[in-house]
Every structure is written in C-alpha cells, then in structure tokens.
C-alpha cells in the first residue's frame, strides 16, 4: 500500500479537532466546584506567561533584540495595553535592533 498523505492529514486534523472539541462539548454547564473554576480562571495567565518567557528572548537570531522586544513589550503593555500597538512595538524594536547590531 502506498503511503497516502491525504489520509494522514485527515487522521491528524481529526485528532487535533477532537482534542479541542470534547471539553467544549461536555462542559456545557457552569462548573460549580470552586477550585476547578478558579483553576480554569487562572489557566490563561499561566499558559501565556509560560509561553512568552523566555521564548520571546530566543525567538529572533539575536538574544539582545529579543530581550529588547521583551522590555519594550512590557512597558508598552503596561502603559497602553492595546494588542496591536504592543505587537507592532515589539516587531519594530527587533527590526531596529537588527539595523544596529
């Protein structure tokens, strides 16, 4: 049997979709357990923080430009907080660092 890429893609896309779907489908009522509810409330903060640092520093091919992007991002997010503004500030910082370094 020849290896079928479309079949593999179908299997894997289906698996990933089910992982995302099942909790949404089965947790349809508000969870009453205070601990679990609190846990789920804190999930996004921890997840995003863990994914951001130290990954942002090593995302570019120069540690300094990544670190600069982190610092600028922290400051702009603190002062302004607008998603688009913060994201663009980080990109511009890395681009400018690339010109200097």
């Amino acid at each position, binding site marked *: 049997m020849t290896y079928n890429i479309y079949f593999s893609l179908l299997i894997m896309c289906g698996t990933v*979709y089910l*992982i995302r779907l*099942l909790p949404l489908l089965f947790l349809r009522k508000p969870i009453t357990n205070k601990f679990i509810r609190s846990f789920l409330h804190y999930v996004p903060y921890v997840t995003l*923080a863990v*994914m951001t640092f130290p990954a942002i520093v090593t995302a570019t091919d120069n540690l300094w430009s990544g670190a600069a992007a982190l610092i600028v991002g922290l400051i702009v997010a603190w002062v302004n907080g607008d*998603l688009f503004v913060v994201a663009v500030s980080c990109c511009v910082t890395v*681009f400018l660092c690339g010109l200097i370094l």
Partner: protein
Amino acid sequence: MENSSSIHNNLQNNLPNDPQNNPQSDLPVGMEHPHPHGRRAWALKGLRDGIPICMGYFAVSFALGIEARNVGLTAFQSFLMSTGMVASAGEFAALLLIASQAGVFEMVSTCLIVNLRYFLMSCSLSQKLSSKTHLIHRFGTAYCITDEIFGLSSAVPGYLQPFYTYAITIVSVAGWSGGTVLGVLVGNILPQAAVNALSVSLYGMFLAIIIPPAKENPFIGGLVAVSMAVSWLFGVLPLTSGISSGFKVIILTLLLAGAAAAIKPVPDFENDPEYLESEDPDL
C-alpha cells in the same frame, strides 16, 4: 477575565456607550457596559484584533511551509494541513510523522501529546460560553482554539460572543495558511530581518493580554511573574530542560494555576458583576 481593563478601555474609546439603552446604567462608574453590543460590533473588533495574530502566524507558518516542502508536501497539501490543524508545534510534529510514514496509532498518539494543552484551553473556554449559547457555536469555537485566539477570547469581559472568536480566526487563519503556502512556493524570499521582526509579534500580543490585568490585580501580577520565572528555570535546570515546550506548558499550567486556585479562589461566578452585566449571547 475579571481585570482585562485595557480591553475595557479600548472599547470605551472606540465605541461610544449609550446610557439611554443601558439597562444597568445605575451601576458604579466603570462598570456600565464596557464592551460592544451584538455580534456585528464584536466581529469588527475581532477582525482588528486578528491583525497582529495574522502577522505573527505568517512568520511562523512561512518557516512551516519551507519545512513542508522539504518533506515533499505540495502547496495544496500544506494548505489543507494548516487550515485543518491550525497548530504550530502540532504541524511540525505532523510533518515529522509524514516524513517517517508513521502509522495511524503513532499519528494519533503524537497528536494527542503535542496538542494536549488545547484540551486545557478548551476546558477553560467552556466556562466563557453561556449555557444558552447554541450548540453549533461549541463546534465552531472548538476549531478556533489556538494559543493566541484562546488568549484573546478568554480576555473578554463576561461571556464570550462567538462571532468575536470567529472574526479573529478568519483573519488569523488567512495569515497562517497563506504563510504556509507561500513558504512552500517561494521558500526563502522573505529577508531574515523581516522574519525576525515578525517572529516576536505573537509574544508582544501575549504581553498585551496578560500585563494589563497583572497591573490591576497584584495576585495575577505575582502569578504572571512566578510563571515566567519558573518557565525560565524549567528550561535551565538539567532535570527538566529536556522536556518539550508543549509538555512544559501543560505541566506548569497544572501546577501553577492549581496553586493559584488553592491560594486565592475566585469569587462566585454567579455573583460576578462582569457576568451579570454581560449580555447573554443568546444565539
């Protein structure tokens, strides 16, 4: 999220409040309808919020496309993969599996492990959907759960209006799939400086989601700081540095969000003013 003040403020700046139509205008200042009304306003906001995700995705998926070409996928096949999966680490793993001609069991189990964090996110997001939200939107929002879109959707005050998530997803997946296809077709046409700059877009966005609530709520601020510190330690310590980033996210989320919930449980959902005032997206 109880403290997504930046998003509140933005919306207040962008969309005028109408006190006449506000049934709860006797609420204290700052509590009266800080977010858009109806699916149209939410969808428009979603289209705008999707732009930074689109940019970041483009850079990441461009690299993915180059990898897909190396494995031997056509532009169309890689388009199907990116549109069907919408997962960065997950798709890199998928390419490895295809390259090694893995069997079904291996494909399913690897996909489960690499994408397990979406399971947690889906659990968390299930609480953001009103129980009155039509079942079809659970199938719809399930497709949209990526790190970034989940982050934005859970930062919404009160219940989530699914059309906000859909709008973000349309813009983001356009960048994601487009980037993958371009990566296959034109390989290394994008200058390295541009790829570098785009690659921090997603992280900038994460900061914009977590820093404003951290600024308002010292406990969340501490949680964010501890999460970042432990995340760094995890990568440095010899015992844990071998663990893949996907697993790192899962382990630390379970540990730290669990600890946070034990230390400071959130107030009752039913009495949360944010949920009481948020319009029920009855669809």
